[in-house]
């Protein structure tokens, strides 16, 4: 596949078209109906949660949140494939993959409500927290890849970055290190056409983002990131290559950020309604749904039935997060160091003294 879709030829790997029709049968991955249905439902759940969060935010119940809306197939495919022992190194727009690893919605809510506890990931092993400094997390993935190879483990790392992130020096260093070390990392660029307001063509003059693989001597492929099957297949083959000792893979997943950059952003300032409409027919859920409906695996009716259940579940977890309670002042201090400096202990005590004094003043 990596030869056939060598990024130098600037082809896009696709399996279904906008109507959900298979146009590349030879490449169709073997996914059972059951798994496929699960994947669709997972994506639907993610989207439901996503849209709901935006409305919570409008109600002032959560701070800045970066929606995944329109990009669900990418995390969906990774989520379907990633194993308990594989690592997930997210950027900040990978809800589906995080949920698949066992991160809970409640944890994500806590995080975006402003609790570090939301990055504890009680049930998700081998999952790094959301990484805010763009592209910096990719180096961690390369390092984890080294550990896997060093200890001869049968694992892979999935590392995410946006199109904007490819401009950072750390993107370069990460894929380059991984290439030199030949370590099992699947780098996935979610090319959603924008970095906040900046269109991808202002990030780089290169023909594609996938072609950057050539600069590091690693496998690369440009995939229709709104085509669940194509994403699935690409990820599956990448994992195979990684586990086969062939080194890292760079996937450019072409998609579109249907929502705002974050809840504090207004996309009408920098893009047109027409453009948004053009991408409507490429919506990843819509396309997979058309496929499933044609195969009689899913129906509008079932969808209408299940969405309220999802909404309820999202709401339940949201309210749990909302009732999480106050932020213990110890938490400000206690996690920085394995061995806490004496002076930091003293700072905490002094803060306690101040709070007592204040309590005596303001009552």
């Amino acid at each position, binding site marked *: 596949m990596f030869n056939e879709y060598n990024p130098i030829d600037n082809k896009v790997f696709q399996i279904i078209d906008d109507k959900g029709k298979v146009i590349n049968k030879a490449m169709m991955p073997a996914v059972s109906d059951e798994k496929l249905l699960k994947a669709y439902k997972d994506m639907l759940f993610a989207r439901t949660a996503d849209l709901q969060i935006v409305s919570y935010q409008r109600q002032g119940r959560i*701070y*800045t949140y970066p929606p995944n809306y329109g990009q669900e197939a990418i995390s969906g495919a990774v989520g379907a494939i990633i194993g308990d022992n594989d690592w997930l190194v997210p950027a900040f727009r990978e809800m589906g993959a995080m949920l698949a690893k066992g991160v809970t919605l409640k944890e994500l809510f806590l*995080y975006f*409500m*402003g*609790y*570090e506890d939301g990055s504890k990931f009680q049930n998700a092993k081998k999952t790094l927290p959301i990484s*805010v*400094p*763009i592209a910096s997390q990719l180096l961690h993935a390369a390092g984890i890849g080294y550990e896997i190879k060093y200890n001869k483990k049968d694992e892979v790392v999935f590392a995410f970055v946006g199109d*904007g*992130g490819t*401009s*950072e*020096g*750390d993107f370069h260093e990460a894929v380059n290190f991984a290439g030199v070390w030949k370590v099992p990392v699947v780098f996935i660029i979610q090319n959603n056409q924008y*970095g*906040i*307001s*900046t269109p991808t063509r*202002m*990030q*780089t003059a290169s023909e594609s983002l996938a072609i950057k693989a050539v600069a590091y001597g690693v496998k690369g492929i440009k995939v229709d990131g709104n085509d669940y099957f194509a994403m699935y297949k690409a990820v599956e083959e990448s994992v195979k290559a990684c586990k086969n000792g062939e080194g890292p893979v760079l996937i450019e997943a072409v998609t579109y950020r249907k929502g705002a950059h974050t809840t*504090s*952003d207004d996309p009408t*300032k*920098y893009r047109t309604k027409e453009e948004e409409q053009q991408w409507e027919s490429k919506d990843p859920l819509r396309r997979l749904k058309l496929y499933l409906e044609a195969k009689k695996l899913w129906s509008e009716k079932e969808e209408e039935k299940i969405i309220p259940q999802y909404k309820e579940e999202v709401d339940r977890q949201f309210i749990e997060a909302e009732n999480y309670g*106050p*932020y213990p*002042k110890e*938490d*400000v*201090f206690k996690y*920085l160091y394995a061995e806490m*400096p004496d*002076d*930091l202990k003293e*700072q*905490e005590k002094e*803060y306690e003294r*101040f709070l007592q*004094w*204040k309590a005596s*003043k*303001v009552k």
Partner: protein
Amino acid sequence: MVNAINDALDIKLAEDKSVIVYGEDVGVEGGVFRVTEGLQQKYGVERVFDSPLAESGIVGTAIGMAVAGMRPVVEMQFCGFVYPAFNQIISHAARMRNRSRGQLETPMVIRMPYGGGINALEHHSESMEAIFGHIPGLKVVAPSTPHDAKGMLISAIESNDTILFMEPKRIYRAIKQEVADGKFTIPLGKANVLAQGKDVTIVSFGAMIREVQKAMVMAKEAGISVELIDLRSIYPIDRETIAKSVRKTGRIITVTEGPKSFGLGAEISQIAIEEAFLHLEAPPARVSGFDVIVPLPKGEHHYMQDPYKIFYEIEKIVKY
């Protein structure tokens, strides 16, 4: 303050063709805080534009432009994202003049919203002025009002030195103030005595000034007279103004947002003891952040200076 900064940029863009403005999303979008709003429309994409998402790239290219005779004003989108540019700042922007024995200059301004209190994600709330103040060759300033922001930014753009211009994002839109139209400048390197007092000197800057002013109300009620100095310039520090004040009051407190150790407070205290040791009635004190990472919004109130915390220290130092 957003408007005042925009106005300063507008004035300099209009009068000097060598001034250009760029950074992440500063063009069409006008910046995530709308500081550069409307400027691209007015001055075109060659003078006001979006750069690729790469801070080292932004600062590094600005150095090149500056050396070639331009006056770039670049934006770091948030305080926590300046670090990828750290090498370019410390190794080149701050050194090109010294390295070339004055042959090459880097008249450039790095604008950067800093500080907490806006319920933001990690890396969006930091106040690391002490790190930048420690870099030889760099000048670091921070306004506390719209008026200062405008006058200081114009001075910064006109300076032939490299200036890190820290903008207190917390009060970007919080302070309403009439700002004079047209061009005026405020000299960099001089502090501003905002209130005369006799019992204790408080030195602060940026968004913390407002918190100190609230604490001063409490102090006044308690019969304590506070002299308030707005540093305006982190480096160079206006030693004279600090010295004069502390010789008068005999007591000094610094109020800053950054972590305590190796912070701004220690430097000011040292200046006080160097300049006014025999006048000191109490040890110079600092109200600062803890030596921790600014907590996420739900915990941030533990970290930020509240006026009570400042008043608490005022009481302590006066009773010492």
